[in-house]
């Protein structure tokens, strides 16, 4: 069975609804990418230098990142040479295959699920630079976990930004979840500590800790974050069970530097990729998986409480390159028929 068939089988096992929503949210992304690749393939009959150059541009325009793109193109060129591929239609399959390879790396798929401690308190710390969607994603996640029947508590660890506590409070009301808070200007480590105590004494299943946005080059602010992390570690062995780094899909190459620095400070275990409902493609997560091996766990597809989807690499890739693959796959069916 071809690679695409395997992928498609996996995807169709997911509930239709989720897959559709995912594809909808990604439609702009998918259209632009696949349209471009298909157009490219249609215009070039021969795989030559210019073809690769244009392919390089398509990938770069999705923010995949120069390093990853260069590596990718180099490998692709080698592969094309090795298999002696001349026809651009044929090269299409290799492109998708290789891209997906980067997404998966050597990872085990279960990495994409949240590390939930069944029957015990799970602490999730949410970090990231300013304005990426941390508080919103926490609100959405609280709602989702609540819907799954878990009892959730949130800690308003952003005591710095104007209105941050009110904002989380509103999300708490929307999700029907309690928010532990201090006043503005309080010590974030202290709020987090209180959050843990409250979650413990209430026997909650999940504690979601909001933090203030901070740029990764602010040494003091990163230290403050490490301190919050340490408080959690000290109170509960093995916690935080997840440290989610929120990345804005609109962000360019700086996202890689964000991932690196936040990983060092807080041992990031997963990524929430937000604002994928825009035209930005978030291709940088390819580079992040490729270079730092941090898996994406959720994607944000809007500002509503239900606009958070668990990330599933199969779906993502299918959503991103789906049309591209369907074509290849149909061709394959045709040739199968002929062979029979």
């Amino acid at each position: 069975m071809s690679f695409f068939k395997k992928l498609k089988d996996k995807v169709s096992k997911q509930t239709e609804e989720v897959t559709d929503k995912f594809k909808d949210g990604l439609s702009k992304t998918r259209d632009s990418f696949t349209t471009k690749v298909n157009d490219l393939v249609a215009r070039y009959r021969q795989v030559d230098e210019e073809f690769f150059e244009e392919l390089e541009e398509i990938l770069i325009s999705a923010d995949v990142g120069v390093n990853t793109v260069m590596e990718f193109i180099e490998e692709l060129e080698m592969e094309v040479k090795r298999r002696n591929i001349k026809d651009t239609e044929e090269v299409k399959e290799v492109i998708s295959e290789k891209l997906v390879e980067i997404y998966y790396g050597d990872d085990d798929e279960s990495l994409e699920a949240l590390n939930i401690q069944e029957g015990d308190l799970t602490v999730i710390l949410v970090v990231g630079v300013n304005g990426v969607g941390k508080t919103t994603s926490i609100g959405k996640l609280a709602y989702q976990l609540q819907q799954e029947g878990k009892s959730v508590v949130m800690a308003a660890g952003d005591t710095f930004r104007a209105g941050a506590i009110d904002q989380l409070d509103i999300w708490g009301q929307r999700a029907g979840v309690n928010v532990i808070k201090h006043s503005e200007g309080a010590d974030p480590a202290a709020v987090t500590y209180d959050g843990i105590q409250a979650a413990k004494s209430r026997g909650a299943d999940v504690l979601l800790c909001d933090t203030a946005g901070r740029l990764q080059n602010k040494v003091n602010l990163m230290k403050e974050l490490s301190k919050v992390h340490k408080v959690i570690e000290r109170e509960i062995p093995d916690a935080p069970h997840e440290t989610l780094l929120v990345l804005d899909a609109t962000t360019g190459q700086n996202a890689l530097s964000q991932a690196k620095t936040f990983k060092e400070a807080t041992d990031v275990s997963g990524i929430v990729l937000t604002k994928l409902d825009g035209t930005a493609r978030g291709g940088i997560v390819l580079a992040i998986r490729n270079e730092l091996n941090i898996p994406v766990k959720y994607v944000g597809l809007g500002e509503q409480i239900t606009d958070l989807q668990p990330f599933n690499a199969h779906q993502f890739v299918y959503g991103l390159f789906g049309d591209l693959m369907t074509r290849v796959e149909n061709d394959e069916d045709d040739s199968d028929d002929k062979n029979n």
Partner: protein
Amino acid sequence: MAFEGLSERLQETMKKITGKGKVSEADVKEMTREVRLALLEADVNYKVVKDLIKRIKERAVGQEVMESLTPGQQVIKVVRDELTELMGGEQSKIAVANKPPTVIMMVGLQGAGKTTTTGKLANHLRKNSNRNPLLVAADVYRPAAVDQLETLGEQLDLPVYSKGTVANPVDIANEAIEKAKAEHHDYVIIDTAGRLHVDEDLMDELQQVKTNMNPDEIFLVVDSMTGQDAVNVAESFDSQLDISGVILTKLDGDTRGGAALSIRSVTGKPIKFAGMGEKLDQLEPFHPDRMASRILGMGDVFSLIEKAESEVDEKKAKEMQNKMKSASFTFEDFLEQMEQVKNMGPLDELVNMMPGANKMKGMKNMQVDDKQLSHIEAIIQSMTKKERVEPSIINASRKKRIAQGSGTSVAQVNRLLKQFEEMKKMMKQMTSSKKGKKGGMNLPFM
């Protein structure tokens, strides 16, 4: 990692290309390959990069390499010049309406920094221009957006007009203007909700606010970490709202900020301010020249180039002065001087800067405006090499040919020849009556 540190590689490549003379096509090719990667790595949109590289190639090949630079650095100089040109000059003025209040509208994607920058701008207007702004909370969507702006108002001790979250933004803005008029606020800054540039309903809403308010400024607030999509965002907001300027936020981070270049090149609108932190006094005028060097990540090479340039200017000025003394100053030199002067800025300002220039005899009939300069340039360019060095050989038929070649009249050619002679006389006077002050003045053609 195979492709780490592109700007380091750029430096490496630059070192490899040595030698003197003219910049060769091979030098340019090698350099632009690295420059291209560096720009892409800095998030400059790939289409913008493509155009830029094309122009850089055209401009750099065949250039004379400055004495204190290598060909590689010379190419970087062209890159810098191109980037600086594209970024434009510094423009941090804020409009003032004929009839107060002046209305400013803040727009942009979610989380870009609109609300924070609303507070910063108000602070800036009060502190630097002694204004009395009113802030308007017209974001009725984002949870606690109104609380956020009200908190900022409290921190600044400035009033905030709000109507909760059930009113619509057009009404809120209308009522805010009335309040501003009644309470004599000279500025009104409207914070709007973040929205995607492809969200038709919400973009329509902004257009309605615009039509109603007729704002004097519409600032597009953009996160400096934005990637390739910056062009789409800027293009959409600009085509739908005709923005008046851009404010780039979070430049206190370590992003290279190539989005700045992309936005400039697709909208042509000035980037007026830079957000340099979360605090309300962390707003600065945007410096396009510094941005150019930040994007390429080659600040040190840039200052090296600047030093080389000023050295060259000094050296040339010295040579020129010697020539003046010996009266061997030719039209060739004249042309070169004109080039230098043209790079220095508006001419009338320069003339005014010259000590005693307006009193000097012969200065009056030598008024220089830029149009005249281009005529002069054309005339000299139509002269043969020999004529430039030895103007005395220019007879009537030569004059006619020169006038024809330069699209001027014989009378104009005559005037220039006369002025040139006068000037040479004057220069001799100036250089021999040095009176203690040395150097200082290197505008011999005046």
